[in-house]
């Protein structure tokens, strides 16, 4: 793959928390419009990779680029504003702001951070709520919504930033099984529309169906990276085989 054309580029990224090395040299490229799933055991560094891509966690060593932004060189939140506009993130715990309604949660950042026009943002927000099939919940507060509904509002909130990339961090891990499919449906639509997505997930079936490429991480390294059919059916690395043997 041509790394210069890639929208996202990580090269030999290293990160330790205290004495514990979490990323031990991660290199990966993601093309525009590609959906990449990251799978692997807990503590293998999956979520940390996402957080290094949008600058939530500074890397110790290595190179991180998203579009024109050289993330590893950014020091302040101010420098990162344009990056945050381009890269949105959806979290395991939804993280909606509990003091604002669903609609307000979606509208806040475009107005307060990007300075977009309120009326235009409201129209955008209502369209997005419709897209995640929650139009009737516009005025509900997060505490009044189910987990699956909150997560779909969180996806709409990420989309309202009009990002080029969305990072999904185990977004179905905290949901009960019935609501998982609504959230996955919403994500699948985005992937089909050609939005670049990186998903950390434990939903192996979903990863196989939706992604163009799957990366398997173990102990802070990407052990294997291949199209889903190849990685799931013919894993080359013994560690991948062992992991898949446990979860499938």
């Amino acid at each position, binding site marked *: 793959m041509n790394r210069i054309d890639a929208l996202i580029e990580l090269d030999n990224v290293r990160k330790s928390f205290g004495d514990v090395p979490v990323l031990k040299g991660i290199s990966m490229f993601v093309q525009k419009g590609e959906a990449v799933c990251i799978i692997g055991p807990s503590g293998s560094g999956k979520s940390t990779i996402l*957080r290094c891509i*949008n600058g*939530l966690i500074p890397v110790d060593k290595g190179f991180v680029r998203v579009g024109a932004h050289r993330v590893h060189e950014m020091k302040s*939140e*101010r420098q*990162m*504003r344009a990056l*945050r*506009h381009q*890269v*949105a*993130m959806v*979290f*395991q*715990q939804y*993280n*909606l*702001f*509990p*003091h604002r309604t669903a609609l307000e949660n979606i509208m*806040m*950042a475009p107005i*307060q*951070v*990007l300075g977009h026009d309120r009326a235009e943002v409201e129209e955008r927000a209502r369209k997005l709520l419709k897209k995640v099939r929650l139009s009737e919940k516009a005025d*509900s*507060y*997060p*505490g*009044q*919504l189910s987990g699956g509904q909150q997560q779909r509002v*969180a996806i709409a*909130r990420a989309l309202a*930033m009009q990002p080029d990339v969305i990072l999904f961090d185990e977004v179905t891990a905290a949901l009960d099984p019935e609501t998982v499919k609504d959230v996955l449906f919403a994500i699948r639509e985005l992937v089909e529309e050609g939005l670049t997505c990186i998903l950390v997930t434990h939903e192996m079936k979903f990863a196989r169906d939706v992604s163009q490429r799957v990366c398997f991480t173990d102990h802070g390294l990407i052990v294997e990276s291949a199209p889903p059919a190849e990685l799931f059916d013919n894993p080359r690395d013994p560690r991948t085989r062992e992991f898949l043997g446990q979860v499938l």
Partner: protein
Amino acid sequence: MFGLDYSWLADPAYQQWLLTGVINTLKLATLSSSVAILIGMLGAFGLTLRIFWLDALIELFVEVFRNTPPLLQMLFAYFTLSSLGLRVTDPSTGLSVPLLSAFACAAISLSLFGGALAIEAFRSGIETMPRSIIDAARSLGYGRWARFWRIEAPIATRICLPALTNILTNLFKTTSQASVITVPELMYYAGQIYNDTFRTLEVMILVLLIYVVLVSILTFAMARLEAFMAFPGYGRGH
């Protein structure tokens, strides 16, 4: 009744003293509560910046004002600030008076005392907030300042309202100590009245009732505010 004599209460002069006392108590409580809340928010914001020297400075402020008696702080403020030599000429009387009146000294010292407690309350609210909420705000591009005022402060305020109610009621009651530095508030006039009438018990019972009523209004208002601001779907917001 019970041998209590309230005939002095018919005297318009005493009525006027009580009224003035109540008004000054309310003024002092309102002013110092407002400034204390502001200090609390700014201090808590300062602590979120995680700047070494600023942390140390705020911690020192909190320790000094939280760990010493408010009466001592008030006396200290009164005797240091008023002896700084800052004087102005009162245009109505033509007399040279201290720039900082006893009332100003009391307001300053109560604001700092309440502020120190409020910093701790707001800090607890901010620290209770899930770390992931802050990650969400950061990932949406919020800078430190906007993140604090738009997200952290509104959430933390709701979390720490019960603690804040405690602080404000305590601060309200502590205003009575301003009588010691001659601030003409309720307690001060109470003293004046029983020195005049020797009806100590009667005056104290009346003043006690006035404080009960005033502080109850405050706690009632705070309870309403708490209910109004509760997160819908959580706790009282159900």
